[in-house]
């Protein structure tokens, strides 16, 4: 639908606004980018599109509402996280051929009641059925602020807004709590496999603009797609653990050209790390160089101007840094750490890729080397669903707390697992293989060198997570207990 013919005027919100005493119309001009990121799970995005594309008996288009929750990331940036879509029932549309769509007072009352009862933000959603970053029409500019004013009246402490979808992208205006003017998010991410990373103020990122920097350096990876390098330069990847696995990961990300990286590791290099820590030198072991420093040296050697945030400690000390990431790759040692990382990533709708390996020896048999690469996508099966994390395994690990001795670790399996994880991350970011909604649980047999889909995938009952729900997204809400 062209902007000229698009008309989502709803007169009813004006009545609501008048009831609430908010005054007359307020036409918007050009909202400016603000400190906001919007994330919407791919499943939810598809659900909204499927509803909005349905022909209506008399309206030219459909509208809906999206409930959102929030979080804060680095620098106080607001994360707006889509969690639930609400269809406007047929009976709540009003026939009016002067406009593309009009919804009745019941639809607006329902929306306001939803805000009131949940104290969650609400976004009005409609769709322009073409590809690329959709724009807002003159009618949107005239009508939507009045609707959002009414939302703000009942939900003062949460953000509200307007979301417009296209076939493969989205655009939004976000009214921060207490603000009368909206802002344009710095980034809108459709979180899925593959991921759509939209920068509304740079719409060309999604319609074929080549990367402006270092075209020659990255020319051999241009097969990843015409916009791939600009997306790579925009995306922020986090690496937790910069030891044997993480050092491979960050080195590869730097070679690929990821310009925004963050990493966490509180360890110092020592002699036992030199058999596998990529980038480490003999003098690092002598000087006990922090692993974050070795990682930074590695990245700066390739990308001197990269935006790198490396924290020489645990990610739990700087969780807001992690929340700003588009993908997190975990290279941690324990199951308990994996559980915490996955929970944090799911909370802020971040795909989490886990890698790990171990060497076991039973009796006189040769040592067995095994590892895994798992993708935990926010709306897909979690590591509990996949049977990788179990309460029994966590209990066994907790019982061995403080057990002395370094576990066997060598460089080559870390390289295989890190490269495999990078392959997954690259496909999520660029979509170059054109696989969609791929489930990743790969097992690595270090004795044979095979990497193959884990047998558990065959027995997965469904592809929805049975452990994390809508209530696990966004900053946690603690309730006073009522019995």
């Amino acid at each position, binding site marked *: 639908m062209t902007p000229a013919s698009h008309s989502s005027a709803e007169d009813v919100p004006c009545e609501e606004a008048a009831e609430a005493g908010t005054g007359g119309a307020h036409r918007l001009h050009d909202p400016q980018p603000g400190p906001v990121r919007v994330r919407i799970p791919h499943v939810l995005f598809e659900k909204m599109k499927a509803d909005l594309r349905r022909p209506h008996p008399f309206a030219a288009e459909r509208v809906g509402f999206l409930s959102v929750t929030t979080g804060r990331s680095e620098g106080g940036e607001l994360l707006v996280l889509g969690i639930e879509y609400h269809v406007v029932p047929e009976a709540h549309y009003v026939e009016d051929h002067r406009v593309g769509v009009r919804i009745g007072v019941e639809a607006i009352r329902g929306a306001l009641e939803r805000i009131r009862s949940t104290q969650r933000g609400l976004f009005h959603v409609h769709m322009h059925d073409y590809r690329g970053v959709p724009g807002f029409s003159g009618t949107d500019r005239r009508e939507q602020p009045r609707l959002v004013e009414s939302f703000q009246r009942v939900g003062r402490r949460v953000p509200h807004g307007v979301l417009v979808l296209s076939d493969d992208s989205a655009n939004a205006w976000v009214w921060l709590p207490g603000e009368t003017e909206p802002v344009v998010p710095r980034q809108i991410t459709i979180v899925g496999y593959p991921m759509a990373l939209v920068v509304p103020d740079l719409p060309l990122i999604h319609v074929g603009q080549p990367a402006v920097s270092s075209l020659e350096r990255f020319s051999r990876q241009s097969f990843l797609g015409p916009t791939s390098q600009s997306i790579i330069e925009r995306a922020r990847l986090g690496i937790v653990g910069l030891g044997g696995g993480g050092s491979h990961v960050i080195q590869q990300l730097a070679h690929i050209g990821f310009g925004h990286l963050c990493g966490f590791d509180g360890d110092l290099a020592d002699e036992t790390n030199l058999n596998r820590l990529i980038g480490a030198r003999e003098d690092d072991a002598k000087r006990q160089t922090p692993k974050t420093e070795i990682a930074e040296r590695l990245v700066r050697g390739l990308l001197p101007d990269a935006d790198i945030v490396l924290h020489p400690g645990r990610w739990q000390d700087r*969780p807001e840094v992690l929340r700003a990431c588009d993908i997190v790759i975990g290279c941690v040692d324990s199951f308990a750490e994996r559980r915490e990382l996955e*929970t944090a990533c799911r909370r802020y709708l971040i795909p989490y890729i886990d890698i790990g390996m171990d060497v076991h020896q039973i009796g006189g048999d040769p040592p067995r080397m095994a590892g895994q690469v798992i993708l935990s996508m926010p709306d897909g099966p979690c590591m509990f669903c996949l049977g990788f994390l179990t*309460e029994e395994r966590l*209990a*066994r690990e907790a019982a061995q*707390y403080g057990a002395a001795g370094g576990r066997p670790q060598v460089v080559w399996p870390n390289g295989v697992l890190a490269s495999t994880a990078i392959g997954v991350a690259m496909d999520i970011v660029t979509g170059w293989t054109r696989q969609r909604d791929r489930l990743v649980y790969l097992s690595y047999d270090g004795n044979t060198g095979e990497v193959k889909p884990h047998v558990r995938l065959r027995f997965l009952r469904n592809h929805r997570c049975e452990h994390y729900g809508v209530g696990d997204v966004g900053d*946690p809400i603690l309730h006073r207990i009522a019995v």
Partner: protein
Amino acid sequence: MATIDEQIRELLRHHPDAEEGTEAGVRYFLIPGLRLPDGCTPDRAAALLCPTARDGYPSRLFLEKRVSCRTARNWNVSNVRILERNWFAVSWRVNPNLRLAQMVAAHLEAFR
């Protein structure tokens, strides 16, 4: 055995400010400013009760910080992140068949 509602009412009688939250399907009870046994420094701390099995323990009581008490304890959980806060816990096993308020009291025995 008391119903969960009865247990919660009892918990609230002892800790009127208690709140609840869930994460990954697990229900937690937050007790802001839980009074710790005599001899503990500080004498109060926010506590998070996980009344179900976790890490091989039938239940756990997490505190917002390590506290010192008369007996040295094995703090085997440091900075574990639950409900977006960092928590600490000592290795302390209590009877699995306790009511919520009893669980809190039994865990506090670790700090006497």
